[in-house]
Structure formats: C-alpha cells, structure tokens
C-alpha cells in the first residue's frame, strides 16, 4: 500500500501538479520573461563553480534521459566491461562534481540565510531535494554497482508503466531504500520545480525548444514547398496542351 502511494499515486500527482503550476506560471510570467532572463544571465555568468555545476548536472541529466529512452542500446553498450566502466565512471565523476560544486556554491554564500539565492520556501525545499537526489544517486552508484545496466530492466520499465498510465510498482518495490529515495526525490523535484526560481529556466527552455522546432520545420518545409511550386508550374502547361 505504501509503495502504491509513493510510486504510483505520488508520481501521477507530481506530474499533474507540475503541468498545472507550470502552465499557470507561464501565463503569469511570460511578459516579464525577457527582462528576467537578462537579469539572470547578468547576475550569474556561467563561469567557475556555476559552470561546473551546470555542465556536470547536464551530463548526469542527459545520461538519465538516454538510459530511460534507449535501455536496449545501453545494455548493448554495457556488454563490453571497459565500456560499462567508462560509462559508469563518467556518471559517477559528473555526479560528484555536481554535488561538490553545489555544496561549494551554497556553503560559502550561506544560501540558507541569504534571500538572494533561496528566495522562497519552495527554493529551500528544491535545494534540499536536489541535494538528496545527488547524494542518493552517488550512494546507489557506489553501493549497487552497474545501475546503468540493472536500471534498464527495473526502473525504466517502471517509468514506462507510469507514462503508459498503467503504473506497476512491483519492480521498484523490491529495490533497496536508497534507490527508492532516489526515485521518489525525482518525482518530488518534478512537483516542486514550477514553484521555484528554476521554473523560469524551464519556461525559457520550453519557449526556445518550441522556437527551434518551428524553425527546423520551416527550414525543411520551405524547399519542399518551392519544389512543389516548380513542379506544378512545369505540369500546368502540359495539362493545358492536352486540353487544347
């Protein structure tokens, strides 16, 4: 029952909360987005610790996305011990750098007391959850080796069952505590994210991705459109000749 609550009901609620809150915040903050974005970039240039943090967390995030998206390919990659060790090492190093840079940014600047960094309670909760997520991720990588392989047949099918709206907790229920903590924290982050300063980043990312997708479609479609016009222009006189 507890597993059902934590890993079937809570993720659905988290996704719903994320969607609703993100939509509401997007509508509210869309107009002030440009100014906010400029302020953020001016205030926090991606150098030093911030750069370390951003790049390392991006590597960790990308690794998780690829693992969830292509578990079969990942298993194929991991068949060779050297490749498996290389992949796990990259993940472990990136996770360690992310954790170290987060702590190195937070402790000297006293994030927990300075309102410039953690502006709301949601920001404090979010920072705590990210910290927990990183610590639990590193702990499971060290304690339970080759997560990139075993997660492909345990956590990935579980996550896919959530996406398919047929949640099945049987695979995650048998996992050790630290794995469950890692999974639960991920859903908690999803739920809290739209309430924090990070929401702006998500909104900007969604806007930029939409713009990129529209540009790509236009770039691909324009030559097709021109080709069709040229082809139509060539065909038309022939049809006309036939009618004559």
């Amino acid at each position: 029952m507890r597993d059902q609550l934590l890993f079937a009901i809570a993720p659905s609620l988290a996704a719903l909360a994320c969607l609703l809150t993100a939509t509401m915040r997007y509508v509210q903050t869309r107009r002030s987005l440009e100014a906010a974005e400029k302020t953020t970039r001016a205030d926090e240039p991606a150098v030093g610790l911030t750069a370390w943090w951003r790049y390392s967390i991006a590597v960790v995030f990308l690794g998780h996305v690829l693992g969830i998206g292509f578990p079969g390919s990942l298993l194929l990659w991991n068949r060779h011990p050297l490749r498996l060790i290389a992949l796990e090492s990259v993940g472990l190093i990136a996770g360690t750098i992310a954790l170290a840079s987060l702590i190195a940014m937070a402790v000297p600047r006293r994030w927990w007391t300075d309102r410039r960094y953690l502006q709301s309670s949601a920001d404090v909760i979010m920072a705590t959850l990210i910290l927990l997520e990183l610590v639990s991720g590193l702990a499971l990588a060290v304690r339970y080796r080759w997560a990139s392989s075993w997660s492909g047949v345990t956590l990935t099918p579980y996550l896919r069952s959530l996406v398919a709206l047929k949640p099945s907790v049987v695979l995650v229920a048998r996992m050790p505590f630290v794995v469950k903590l890692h999974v639960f924290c991920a859903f908690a982050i999803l739920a809290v994210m739209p309430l924090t300063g990070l929401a702006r980043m998500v909104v900007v990312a969604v806007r930029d991705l939409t713009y990129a997708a529209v540009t790509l479609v236009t770039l691909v479609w324009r030559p097709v459109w021109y080709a069709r016009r040229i082809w139509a222009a060539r065909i038309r006189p022939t049809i006309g000749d036939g009618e004559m």
Partner: protein
Amino acid sequence: MRAKALLLCVVLISGAAAKAHGEHGPGALFQRRCRVCHTYGSGDLIGPDLKGVTDRHTREWLTKWITSSQSLIRSGDPAANALFRKYKQFPMPDQSFAAGELDALINYFAAGGPVAEATRNRRAATATSAEIDLGRALFVGQRGLASGGAPCVSCHSIGDIGIGGSLGPDLTRAFSRYQDRRLALLISRGCFPRLPDISARTPPNDDEVFALKAFLRQADPGQHLHESAPSQARH
C-alpha cells in the same frame, strides 16, 4: 476401415492405460495420449508433428480440434478439413480431459514440449565445455540473452569475475545452495517480474537456462570439493 478401427483401439487402450497408471503433468499426458500418433520434432507419424502446433493454430482451434475433430470438420472449418485430407482421412479420436489438463497440454506444446522438457531435466554435470563457455558468456554479457534482458553480471558477482554488480547476491555458491533443478527453475523465472504491457521481454530460453546453470556449477568451489571428496575417499 480396419486400420481406422485398429487405430481407435490403440488410442482407447493407451488412454485407459494412462488412466490406470495415473497421469501427472502435461509431459505424461503427451507420452500416454499423443505419442501413439504424433511426434514432437521428429516428423509426421499417423498425425502431424506437434512441434510448433501452437504457432500454426490458435488455442481456441486446438481445443476444439482435440476435443472433437469430427465436429470441427463437419462445421466446414478449412484448416480442419485440410488436415483431415492430408492425413489420409484418419479421424482423430475425441479426447476428454479433467479440468485444466487440456490447457496445460497446450501450454506444454507452446513452451517447447518434450524437447524443452528434456533440456530442462538435463543435469548440469552433463554439460560440455562449450555449454559452460556459453553460460559464462551469457553471465558476463559477452553474448546477449535472446530475450534482450540484462546479463547476470549487471546485478551479481561470481568467483573469478571481478566486475560483477552488487545489487543482487554473490552467486559463487548458488549451485551448492539451490542444486540442479531448483536453480534451473529460479533462472527460468528470471530475477525481476515482467510487465507484459510495457516490455516484450521473455524469460531466458531453456538452452540459456541450462548453460547458465552449468556455468554456475562450474564456478562453485563447493561443488568441486563435493565431487573430489568421493575420489579422495577411494584413495
């Protein structure tokens, strides 16, 4: 006509003998009821080879055919009529089963029948070095499982293989602990429950189960001590 009568007698006598001896499991059912007219993987006999029968026909069709082939033929079923013509119009005698027996028999055919059963019952001690090597390759992932599942090394470590995972227990002494048949059963079930709606993965096949079992036996130091003990006693 005499041949048909003779066939019917043979089937009825074998059926009666089966009841007298008591039938346990679909393997025994196959041996006592079907083997008179059918083989599994050795070609046609009086009736067709039953290997792959569940791929050729649906479960519903098989149930109808086995319980009353003549009714199915009279109903005009094209597959039933084609079979009847192909096998010299020898009617297959109607079979009656206790509840669940026919389903179990069809499942047995779908799972590989007596061929697979023989592999499942084979003792790990009879494995060749090639089969042990295959087991090792499957364990460490050098060779992928047919189902596409993760290799054992993802979660388990064993003896001299230094790169084993640590989510599951060390399997160095798994053979001593579970012994032949129980270990095969555990491997064939797989370590994780499957989600049929989400993933098309299937359990390891019988050859893979046997190879893994043979490798686990070979890697188990307790097993070697157990084997060398009688020879030492003789000296």
